[in-house]
């Protein structure tokens, strides 16, 4: 485990990324691009169609932030960052492998976890996943020196791609490093499991008990069709 501080500058030097260890703290200076639901989807579609040249920004070696920011118009033109924090990244997992493979960003910054299945893609493409402290959007916005550009304005303020010039943007903690370690897996299968077992035992709870009458499975989930058509094992 790390807990070392790193100061990175875009375009990020690949060798520096190799030094990052789980739980190290990173501060980023340079260019940071926001990506959210609609822009992630459009990037994935363009790459799938082989139309990379239609993507109007170059992410190579840059930072990506999963965020739908609050941005205000500035008098005399341009914009200023009001509140900029990370949004939950897990929902973007399917869009990430093609993006890192074809656009080669330096680091991916978000919140929460990514699906375990894409860790190998991040490791292969040398793009670690970092977490910004959730809810600290006033703090992070104060580290944005300038808004350089806005792409895909038709998505609206929240889903447009914003290009920020940032200085010592952080703290960002390393959650997936280039050794393929993930803090999510370590915590959930380690400390949380241990604590849950202890707390349930102290409370006299059977962790395998099934007290739920409804919903048996969630409508709209992959299990619903089987539930509706098969007899439950008693």
């Amino acid at each position, binding site marked *: 485990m790390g*807990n070392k501080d790193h100061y990175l500058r875009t375009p990020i030097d690949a060798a520096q990324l190799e030094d990052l260890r789980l739980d190290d703290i990173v501060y980023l200076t340079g260019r940071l691009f926001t990506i959210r639901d609609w822009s992630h989807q459009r990037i994935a579609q363009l790459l799938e169609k082989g139309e990379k040249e239609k993507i109007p920004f170059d992410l190579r070696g840059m930072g990506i932030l999963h965020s739908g920011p*609050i941005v205000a118009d500035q008098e005399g033109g341009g914009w200023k960052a009001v509140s900029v924090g990370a949004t939950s990244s897990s929902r973007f997992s399917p869009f990430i492998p093609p993006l890192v493979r074809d656009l080669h960003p330096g680091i991916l910054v978000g919140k*929460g976890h990514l699906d375990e299945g894409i860790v190998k893609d991040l490791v292969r493409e040398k793009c670690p996943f970092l977490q910004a*402290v959730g809810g600290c959007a006033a703090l992070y916005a104060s580290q944005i020196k300038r808004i350089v550009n806005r792409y895909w304005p038709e998505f609206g303020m929240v889903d447009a791609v914003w290009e920020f010039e940032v200085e010592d943007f952080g703290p960002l*903690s390393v959650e997936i490093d280039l050794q393929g370690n993930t803090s999510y897996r370590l915590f959930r299968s380690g400390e949380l499991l241990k604590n849950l077992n202890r707390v349930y035992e*102290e409370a006299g709870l059977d962790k395998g008990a099934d*007290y739920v009458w409804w919903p048996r499975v969630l409508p709209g989930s992959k299990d619903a069709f089987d539930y509706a058509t098969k007899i439950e094992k008693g």
Partner: protein
Amino acid sequence: MKVIQADLLGKVSSLMLHHASKVLPPGVERAIRKAAEEEPKPKGKAYLQAMVRNMEVSRQRGVPLCQDTGVPMFYIDLPPGLAIEGDVRAVLEEATRKATRDAPLRQQVTHPLTNVNSGDNVGWGAPPIFVNYNNRIDYLELLAVPRGGGAEIKSSAVVPIPGAPKESTILKTVLDAVAMAGGENCSPNIVGVAVGGFGIDFTEYLARKAIYREPLNSRHEDPQVADLEERLFRAVNDLGIGPLGVGGKTTCLGLHMEIAGCHSAVFPIAVSFYCWSARYSRARIYPDARVEFVTHPELNKEFSHGK
């Protein structure tokens, strides 16, 4: 019958929504600062310290604490013998538009089928307004909540088997919900729990509204409920999830439970979360139209000058 003018409600709500997005209720801020001081784990402590700095930067710069200023929710508790004259929905919509411009809040409200964004957080029934007839108060109580999405989506409700052991079922349901969220609901949270009530939307309403109980982490007047609250509060913190699931001793800042009469075969349990940035604003409007801002007393002066 005394009457309060809807316009007054509108002016008060706009200020409340605006300030709720930027300044946490004092009890929540104190709880975060205390957690930051007491956290022994370095990463958890660094996270909590960033939260403290965020509260300070937000205050200095006058900007929203979190970019997800959410969908505004309004709760009105009406005492006996007091009525509101005028178009409450219209004034609360206007209050939302004004706060969205002035704060500014994120343009959040979209049509659920077309993704068209109204641009002012009003539209297609938003903002939601909940009215409760409350005969235990003699003033109108107003609650304005800029409620973000990250904690809301991890809220849940289930209906247990009628014969299931009550306490074990409640304890397991709440602990499972907290563990499943694993801090990605921007912990440390305020956890609201409700047991009973009918239909299930009422159970969820009670759980969500329980979040805003003051003082933070105070206990229910029913000793049986208070006992469950205390045990759950300790158990949740014993999970060690800490801020954002990075590990630490504070997973919840407070846990509040409500109960309500229910169908004899249907006792729903709802669990609702609020992120550490537990933004809400509470005010009282007395029958003589006097306004008292409870969570944001700094507004008392501003309001008496501004009107």
